[in-house]
């Protein structure tokens, strides 16, 4: 793991949150190398005791957020809301304020995150969780 090219980026989070290190490592590698997102960074998601990933899909401008978790974890509704609260508060703090930009690309969308669910056999699935009652695409 230490020799992997992702390790230098992830190492602070791996040592800070060892329990979620496996799913973060797997998700980060999938996002960077398989999905080929751009401008990928890792942020400290204290409310969920783990690192989260932000980045943009190839050739898009919308900043997206991915929260990794393992299939064997037990989450809760409050946990998910904590993730929303922290991600979108940090964003509106000005550090990464993209609201106007986001409106132009995706309409007045309610905030959403991707939950990356990882398993031990290295398979991974992403689900989009939107805050509020959001109609499915037609």
């Amino acid at each position, binding site marked *: 793991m230490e020799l992997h090219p992702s390790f230098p980026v992830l190492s602070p989070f791996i040592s800070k949150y060892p329990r979620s290190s496996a799913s973060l490592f797997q998700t980060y590698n999938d996002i960077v190398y398989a999905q080929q997102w751009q401008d990928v960074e890792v942020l400290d998601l204290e409310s969920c005791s783990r690192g989260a990933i932000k980045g943009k899909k190839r050739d898009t401008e919308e900043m997206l957020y991915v929260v990794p978790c393992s299939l064997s*974890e037990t989450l*809760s509704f409050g946990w998910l809301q904590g993730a929303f609260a922290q991600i979108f508060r940090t964003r509106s703090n000005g550090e990464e304020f993209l609201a106007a930009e986001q409106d132009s690309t995706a309409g007045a969308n309610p905030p959403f995150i991707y939950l990356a669910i990882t398993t031990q056999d290295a398979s991974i699935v992403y689900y989009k969780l939107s805050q509020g009652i959001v109609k499915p695409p037609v």
Partner: protein
Amino acid sequence: MSDSEARPVALRVANKTAYVWDVDDIATLRSKHRICGVLTGTLPHLSQQNVFLGVPLVLMPEEAVLLVETGAAVLVDDPKAYLEPTIPQLQKWSAEQQESIRTQLAYTETKLAKESASPGRALSEEALRKRKEREERKKAQAALAAKAAGDEGLDVFAQEASSSSSPAPTPNEAERTSTPSVSLPSDPRPSTPSISTDPSKSSSSLPPYTIVIPASATSHEWYSPESCTYTTIEAAREAGVWDYPSTLFERARCGVFKDLWKQGYFMGGGIKFGGEYLVYPGDPLRYHSHFAATVIESPIASLRPMEIVAHGRLGTATKKAHLLCGWDDEKKEVSYLSIEWAGFG
């Protein structure tokens, strides 16, 4: 909702389930209060058919709670609403029954008189006689055929089958046509008492009539729901008539149901999509549901990623989003998360 002149709908409670028996009430609930319920009534003689169901309408408990809380309905402890009838009430009821029977008998008599006067009758008797002859012939042929086959066991069967399949003529016709072949007395089965057992007292005394049972028992004079009508859930709970919601999960369901309802949605049962409710943007007869909803009773209730995968994938496959409805019992608030498949990975 606060239609002052409209009387509240009576939800008749039996065994802690709320039913609506009045068709107009069902229409009111649906059109004015956006509450659909489920029709469950079958026809007495076709209880297996489940395509066209009728009254009673069964309400989900949270539907009943919402209706009572908004003042649109009251709970009626129906089994207690039937007081013991007084003697005059019973006498009146009995007199009405007798009157109904007399009217029917009078009608039947005039009809019979008309029919016997018309000449079409003879022809039909002729036809009956011919049919009987045909059946006799068939029976004989069947017996012969069976004998020819040489199987005696089958023979017996064939005889029996053919004899039982031929319809026995009604006693009245037997009397009139006086065919000697009819062997009613030798029939080993005990005969049910009917007109034929007493030929001396012939048809004029006891033709059949219908006993009328009113579709709604509330028209009886001794039906008195006043003493067992409850306008609040608490009152009904104290009386031991109603106990929903009594647990945290039930409170969560009521809270979520009410919150979605306030936003204008219609809710139906969600069992087909693995949720608590299906959430419709309008009347379910006109719209497909957009969401399947699950109720999460508290922010710390455990939620496994596998549930998110299962709900999310099913919703995406059926063009629905899945709603996680989180109830906060302290704040009495609902918050929502919508799940969709991300479309990658």
